[in-house]
C-alpha cells in the first residue's frame, strides 16, 4: 500500500536532528518505507543525513510518502511530527 500527502513544516527549527530521528522511528515502528520529497529530490527517512541535507526549514512544504501495509497510519503519525509546532 502507498500513501502520500503534502505537509507544512511546523517546528521552529525546521527538520533537525530530533525530528529526523523521530521520523526514522516511525518507519521502524510501522514497518514501512518512508520518503520525503522536496525540491525535486526524494530521500528515504532511514538516512538521517539525507533528511537533514534537505535543509527543511519552518514553513517549507514537503511531500511525504509511505509504502507498506500500514502506510496510512504511518503517514498520519509522521505528518504530526513534521507539522508539530512545539517541536523544539
Amino acid at each position, binding site marked *: 500500500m502507498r500513501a502520500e500527502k503534502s505537509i507544512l513544516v511546523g517546528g521552529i527549527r525546521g527538520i533537525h*536532528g530530533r525530528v529526523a530521528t523521530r521520523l526514522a522511528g516511525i518507519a521502524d515502528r510501522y514497518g514501512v518505507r518512508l520518503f520525503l520529497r522536496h525540491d525535486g529530490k526524494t530521500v528515504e527517512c532511514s538516512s538521517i543525513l539525507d533528511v537533514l541535507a534537505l535543509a*527543511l526549514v519552518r514553513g517549507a512544504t514537503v511531500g511525504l510518502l509511505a509504502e507498506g501495509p500500514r502506510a496510512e497510519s504511518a503517514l498520519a503519525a509522521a505528518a504530526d511530527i513534521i507539522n508539530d509546532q512545539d517541536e523544539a
Partner: protein
Amino acid sequence: MTCPDQQDNRPPPARALQGIGVSPGIVAATVVVFKRRTVRAGWHHLPPDHIEHEVDRFAGAIKAAGDELLLLREKLADDLADALSIIDSHLLMLKDKMIVERTIGIIRHKNVNAEWALAQALSEIKERFDRIDDSYIRERFTDIKHVADRVFGLLSGREHQPFAGEGQAVILVANDFSPEDTLRMQAGNVHGFLTEKGGVTSHTAIVARALGLPAVVGLEHATSLLTTGDAIILDGGSGQIVLDPAPEEMRRVQEENRCDGLLADELARYIHLSSETADGVAVRLSANIETLAELPAVLHFGSDGIGLFRSELDYFNNRRPPNEEQLVAIYQQLLAAMSPHPVTVRTLDVGGDKFLNRFPGNKAWLDRERNPALGLRSIRFSLYEREIFRSQLRALFRASVHGRLRILLPLVSAPAELRQAKEIVAEVLAELAENGYSVAQGVELGIMVEVPSAVVMADVFAAEVDFFAIGTNDLIQFSLAIDRGNQYVAHLYEPFHPAVLRMIRQTVEAGHACNISVSLCGEMASDPLCVPVLLGMGLDELSMRPAVVPRIRRLLRHCRSDELRQISRQALQCGDSDQVRDMLARQLPALCPKEFYQ
C-alpha cells in the same frame, strides 16, 4: 656530587603539579587518560585480498561505536529526554548509508584503508552540509563529526575503553571534554576531572561544579605526564595534583571521601522531597546555571526550577553574538526541560569582570573603562547596544511558549532604566505579534536587586515589576565598597555585615508589600550558616549551585518557620558581624543537629 638527603633510605617526596582548581573537593583515584589527537587518516593502498578484511574492520568499529552508545543510553536516567534523543540521532548517523555504505564502497573501489575511506565519505557529507543556508541545520555537521571521531578512535585501536572501569573510581584526564563527553560522565563512575585546556568558565569547569565533582583545568601536558592506571590525588580547590602519592595518603583521602559518600547518600534522600519547612511553609530551592550542559545535574539533584540562568556564555563562545534563532533554540530547550518549573533568565550581564571585547565596535569602549565595575555593563550595556538586547528579548519571548519564563534585568540602579527596558519589551512584543509569533501569557519581568540604590528604592521598583532577585555577591561588594579580588581588603567582604542583612530585609518587605516574590541568588543562598537567617526573613526562593540543593533542602525541612523568624530577628538586632556569628554558633546546632554537628 651527592646530597646528604639521598643517603638515607627515605622514599623520594611525592611530585606535585599545579593547575587551576575550578571545582572544589579532594579525590584520590587512578586516572584514565584520553589522548584525542586530531586523527590524521593516512592513506594505504591495500592488496585485493585484504579488502574484505578491511571492510570487516570498519564494520567492527561501527558496531563497537554503536554498542558503546547503547550502553550509555541504558545507563542514563529516563528523565534526560534531551540527552537520550541526542544519542538516538547519533545511533542513526552511525547506521547511515552516507557513512557506512559510502565508506565500504570507497574501500572496495579504491582499494584503500578504512580511515582514509571514512575521511573521504565525511568530506562528501561536509560538502553537502556546507551548502545549506539554515545555520542550525548546517551546524548539525558537528554531530556527524563527533560520531565519526568515535569511529576513527576505535579504528586506530585507541579509545576503546569505557569512560570508567566497572565499579572503580577514576579521574578522567583529557585535553578537553566535549559536551557529549559530559553526558557520558553522568553515567560513569567518574570522581574527578583534569584537563589541559580551559579556565574557570570552561565547559568542564561548569559541568564539574554542577555535578559537585572536583576538577582541575589548565594543566598543560597532563595527557603526556600521566598514563592510564596512574594513581593521583587531585585537589579541585587549590588546583594541585600529587603524583605517586604514598599509599597511606591515598587511603586517608579515600576514607574521607567514603565519609563524604555517606553524607551524599544521606542527602540523596532529600532529592525527591518537597522544599518546605517542618511546619509546611514552602520555599523554592532552585539552581544557578549558565549552560544547557548543566541541566542533567539540575534534574539529578532535584531543584525546583532555575533561579538564575546566566545567559552570557552563549555570547562568549563564538566570535559573533549568537543570532536570534540560535538563542531561541537554547531557551526553548531550557524551558521545556524544566517545565512546569519556572526558569529565570538573566539578560546579558556583560561588563564588570566579564568583557565582551569580541563585540564589534565595543573594544574601544572597553579599553577606555577605568572602573569597569561601575561602567558600561549589564542593563546599561543592553540599553546602549539595543539591537543585541532586542534580539535576546525576541528569542526569550519566542521560546516562552515552551515553559514558565521569568526575565531578569541585571544591575538596575534607577527607575528610569527599568522604564526604558520595559518600553523595549513592549516594542518587541508588538513586533512579535505582528510577525505572527505566539508568546506565552504571564511571562514575568523582574530586576536584580544588587545596587544599594535599588534597595533604597525597592518600594518604587516593587510596584513596577513582577519579582525581585537579590544578587548578594554584587550587593555586598557595592554596599561595603569591597573588591573581593583584592587580597588586601577581601577580609572585609562580610555577608553578615548588619548593613547587608538589613538591606535584604528591606527588599523582602518592600516586595511582599506589593505581593511580588523575592528570591536570592548568590553564595549566601548555599551557605548553611546564612540560609536560616535568610529563610527567617521570608525569602520565597533561594537559588544555588545544583549540587547544593539537597543539603539546603535537608536544612529547610528540619526547621520550623517560627524558629527561623526568631533567628532572623536576633541576627538583625546584632550590631556587628561577629555578634551575628556568635549568636548563630549558639542557636543553629539545636535547630538542625544533622547539619551543624558534623
